[in-house]
């Protein structure tokens, strides 16, 4: 049973990590807790499902559609709201509340546009493969999610660490003002970040929508809560943190459900989160304290 539970933890953790990647990226660069990430995630899933059911697109094209549509939504949110708030030097709380408002608007719009009922990808579209090792079962789709989560994390980490844009982004994260003085196109990179983060959120929406084959206007809310916990645990804005935070939360949840009680899943996971923050207030990979010094 333990082997299966570890696999369960790995897939659940990867789902959390996939969602948290875009979320943490926006925080790391823009220093905004973007509460509309859950709504963007949902829009990505709907974009893919519309591409598939309305335009009979293959899965690859659907994922691309999700990437573009949610990326553009992210750009729009940045242009209409976040950029204006930045220009007025609004305190941290304001963009957070503003993006909460965006969530309500986008969710209601989706309810009006697509209806309140659950929508699904057509059966034929779903990868049905399965690996069975003795008592342990793992579906191809789950394996795909785990792979994509690790791959994207590695890719983002590499970009941030080794490319010119990445260096510029890290400079902005240190101080947008100093970065601008150095000739970095700060606004342009902010837009790029908003697009990338939202596009990642949209892709996560498709993969997770596929995995549980359920797309609803409300699908962003529960995962947003977990996503916030993952990002805090991993260290706000840290890309490795999103992955390991996600895996940690997945493990804590699954194992406490398995060996304690399923009522205790969230209690244990969030209790551990609390304990870790007592020891490491900036999260597993956080550098907030160093930066302040």
């Amino acid at each position, binding site marked *: *049973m333990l082997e299966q539970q570890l696999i369960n933890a790995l897939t*659940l953790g990867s789902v959390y990590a996939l969602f948290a990647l875009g979320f943490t990226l926006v925080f790391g660069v823009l220093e905004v807790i973007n509460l509309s990430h859950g709504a963007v995630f949902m829009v990505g899933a709907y974009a893919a499902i519309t591409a598939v059911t309305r335009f009979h697109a293959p899965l690859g094209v659907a994922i691309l559609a999700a990437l573009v549509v949610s990326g553009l939504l992210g750009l729009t949110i940045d242009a209409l709201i976040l950029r204006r708030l930045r220009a007025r030097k609004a305190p941290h709380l304001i963009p957070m509340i503003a993006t909460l408002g965006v969530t309500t608007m986008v969710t209601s719009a989706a309810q009006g546009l697509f209806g309140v009922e659950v929508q699904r990808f057509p059966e034929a579209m779903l990868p049905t493969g399965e690996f069975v090792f003795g008592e342990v079962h793992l579906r191809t789709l789950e394996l795909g999610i785990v792979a994509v989560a690790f791959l994207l994390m590695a890719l983002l980490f590499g970009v941030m660490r080794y490319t010119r844009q990445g260096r510029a982004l890290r400079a902005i994260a240190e101080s947008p003002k100093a970065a601008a003085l150095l000739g970095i196109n700060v606004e342009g990179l902010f837009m790029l970040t908003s697009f990338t983060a939202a596009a990642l959120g949209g892709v996560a929406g498709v993969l997770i929508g596929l995995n549980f084959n359920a797309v609803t206007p409300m699908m962003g809310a529960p995962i947003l809560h977990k996503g916030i916990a993952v990002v805090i645990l991993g260290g706000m804005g840290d890309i490795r943190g999103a992955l390991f935070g996600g895996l940690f939360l997945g493990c804590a949840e699954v194992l406490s459900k398995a060996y304690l009680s399923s009522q205790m899943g969230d209690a244990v996971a969030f209790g551990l989160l609390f304990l870790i923050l007592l020891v490491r207030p900036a999260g597993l990979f956080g550098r907030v304290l160093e930066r302040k010094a």
Partner: protein
Amino acid sequence: MNRVSKHFSLALAGLLAVTAVAGDLKIGVAEALTGGAAQYGVPIRNGFQLAADEINAKGGVNGNKLVLVIEDEQGKKEEAINVFKKLIFQDKVLMIFGPTLSNSMFAAGPVANAAKVVAFGTSNTANGITEVGPYVFRNSVMESDVLPVTVSTAVKHYKIKKVAVIYGNDDAFTKSGYDVFKKVLEDQKIPVTTTETYVKGDVDFKAQLTKIKATNPDAIICSGLAEEAANIIVQARGLGLKAPFIGGNGFNSPKMFEVSKTAGEGTFVGSPWANTNPNAANQHFVAAYKAKYGSDPNQFAAQAYDAMTIAAAALKTVKITGNLPADRQALQEALPKVSITGATGPFKFRQAAPKDGKPSGYDADQKPFIYVIRDGKFVLFTGK
């Protein structure tokens, strides 16, 4: 136009507007049309609308048209109270259908009861709803009437010795279903290997199911809504868990098959309604709903459809005097006498036991059907 004639024509227009609606029967509909509970509230609203349109197309009730005043109570207690007050005091409706959730009925029901206006729930299944007072009605069958029959039928069929249980523990509907299951299992002396829970919004149930698999039960009892339940079944089969499922009221929706396909084969469900129930009223309802809304109806739409038919049957026996309190009272007195055969089969009311010496409202008095899933469909279980 001078000022006097302008006022005169306005008054005239107002008069015309009043005379135009003099023969209308205003019925309030307070359901959750936005928010999380909208997935129930919207089909319910559709069920009402379909029934009212059909009744009006046949000339209405004694020549009077049914006019629905539809309000969104958002699935929130506070909003349900506000909407009830608006419908009762401002719109002056004869009676109110709704609200969607049991929690909201506990909050808003007393408002209607105090104003002596019928509040008719079509989706409230929690215990004690009708203890609010004699103006509270419901045609939603309580799980305590359905589940004992479901469990004993399945136990007999599969020769079940021990079961595992999984349920949603943060939802009044699925939790109350679990409480009933628990009592039924105790009464029928069936041991439980393990009891697992999940919360609303969960999409990954593999941890709980892996644990259930290790206890090797003969069947799995699940009190959940159709969406969650279907995912639970799919994930159970994905983990190699082959025991059959026994479901609560929430299973009863075509949604079960959209997700679970053939994974749900052999599942036992008890319900007042199923889309394949062959009675004529139901076949007509299923076809008409699909034609009007382009999707399959669910149990909630069926119960709303029947509720409107019940109200129309009661209104037929009431002489509308135009004196609102008297008409409301006459309707309350006429409703308990109604007996119809609708989409959910033969129906009549049963007055709930009085609470603290005060009279209670009226529950549904309906026999459940036991269905088993075969070839991706609900099939009426006939003992084989």
